[in-house]
């Protein structure tokens, strides 16, 4: 019974919540993006479906599900079908190690008895706490690139292939600087586990962004590039490549790519919150709710910080024009990477002298 509750029921419920909530969240992020960009451009944005367009995501999801599913004749059918799944699954798996908050206490029926006996059960607000957390995220999210490359290749068409090549080159390049920018934080926290990293920032509210501002800026830039967002959205530059790697995809398969992209955005933003902004910790040691509701408050602060960074993505997209491809590569390799390595060396020396 304990085995069932600990290893099947509890993770199962959490996974179910994430799998159900994430698509809904993504739908409303899209609405948020359309609305905010519209406001920045002095437009109204979607207004027709529901009050102020609030039901637009649901209408869009229904439309995508009902659309005809087209597989091009020259496409490699199996890989064409597999590619969106390969892109989507890693983005979801990664969410399993992200700590959304500390523990909450939930009444759980003790055994299969009637009337049910409830016991208080401490449930942490993350699926699992791996001791290789950060490494796990980097490893699994690097599989997502494969989905994009495969989609571009399997479409058997020129624009998708070019888009996929760009995307792969970009993601592989920026992954390097991204990895190096994380190392500074790891040196300070002394652990790869995301929960340990948050706990290491708990003392007096000293978030790692104060110690690692350079690493944070590099991580922010690389995070935008990793998720193929503007101003680094060259893989899907519509003026040159139609829609990049997903040109030939339609209907539900296309929406899987869309979901993967937004899920990756959420993952990068939550990594940013966890690594640099104290995860679920309240700013300035501010506590609004009593200790018994600490879990809910933690989740609130996490979501608030998360939304700020997601907003920053939208803000970037509305503000900056797209990079040129050679600029993108030279910024990644010649500017961000050397700075990130210098930051790692400096941090290592400082940690050695101040703590050793």
């Amino acid at each position, binding site marked *: 019974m304990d085995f069932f509750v600990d290893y099947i029921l509890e993770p199962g419920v959490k996974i179910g919540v994430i799998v159900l909530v994430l698509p809904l969240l993504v739908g409303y992020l899209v609405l948020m993006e359309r609305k905010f960009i519209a406001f920045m451009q002095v437009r109204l944005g979607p207004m027709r479906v529901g009050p102020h367009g609030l039901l637009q995501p649901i209408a869009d999801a229904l439309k995508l599900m009902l659309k005809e599913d087209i597989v091009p004749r020259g496409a490699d059918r199996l890989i064409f079908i597999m590619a969106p799944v390969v892109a989507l699954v890693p983005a979801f798996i990664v969410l399993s190690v992200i700590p959304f908050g500390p523990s909450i206490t939930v009444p759980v029926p003790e055994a299969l008895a009637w009337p049910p006996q409830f016991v208080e059960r401490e449930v942490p607000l993350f699926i699992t706490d791996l001791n*290789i957390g950060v490494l796990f995220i980097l*490893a699994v999210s690097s*599989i997502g690139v494969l989905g994009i490359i495969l989609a571009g290749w399997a479409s058997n068409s020129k624009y998708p292939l070019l888009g996929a090549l760009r995307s792969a080159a970009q993601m592989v390049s920026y992954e390097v600087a991204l990895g190096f920018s994380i190392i500074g934080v790891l040196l300070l926290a002394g652990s790869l586990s995301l929960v340990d990293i948050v706990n290491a920032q708990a003392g007096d509210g000293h978030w790692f962004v104060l110690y690692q501002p350079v690493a944070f800026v590099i991580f922010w830039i690389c995070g935008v590039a990793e998720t193929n967002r503007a101003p680094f959205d060259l893989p899907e530059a519509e003026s040159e490549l139609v829609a990049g790697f997903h040109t030939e995809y339609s209907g539900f398969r296309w929406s899987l790519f869309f979901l993967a992209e937004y899920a990756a955005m959420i993952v990068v933003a939550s990594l940013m919150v966890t690594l640099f902004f104290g995860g679920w910790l309240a700013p300035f040691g501010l506590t609004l709710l009593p200790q018994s509701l600490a879990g809910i408050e933690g989740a609130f602060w996490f979501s608030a910080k998360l939304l700020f960074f997601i907003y920053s993505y939208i803000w970037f997209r509305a503000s900056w024009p797209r990079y040129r491809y050679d600029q993108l590569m030279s910024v990644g390799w010649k500017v961000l990477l050397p700075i990130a390595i210098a930051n790692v060396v400096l941090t290592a020396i400082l940690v050695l002298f101040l703590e050793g």
Partner: protein
Amino acid sequence: MLQLVIFYIFATIAVVSAILLITRRNAVHSAMFLAATLLSVAGVFLSLRAEFLAGVQVIVYVGGILVLFVFVIMLVPTDRVMFERRYNRQGRIALITAAVLVGELVYAVIQGRDAFVFPEEALEPAVEGNSQWVGTVLYQNYLLPFEIASILLLVAIIGAVVLSKKSKPGGENAVEE
């Protein structure tokens, strides 16, 4: 018991996809089976409680090397590759290599644990702090082999740069599209 079941699941996937990897004619399909093999090897590492190794296996092989493989394969038109002469017609060399490999494997299986020389500390069960432990062993006990390996890699990188520098666009050895 559970560990054994998990091992056999991953091992079966690894072996079957390794066989498919060398028998497919389409290079991209081969690459996919390579991905399946590498991921299930990572799974075997996990079942041996070597989380760090599993993570590194995925990040280096699937995220790095395989992506570069597919990157290159994609640039080659598939219909031409289908009719190209392949490297699997060298029966004699293959037979010798395979025989040596099978010999090694048989020796290892018969000898069991005695076939390998384990350093003393490696026999400790790696339960807590896997990555710290790997770091300590790699950078303290085996620093020299580690440095030798990194110098080898550096030489290979410089070699690759020199080779690719040769073909200047518009120069004598210009790359033909």
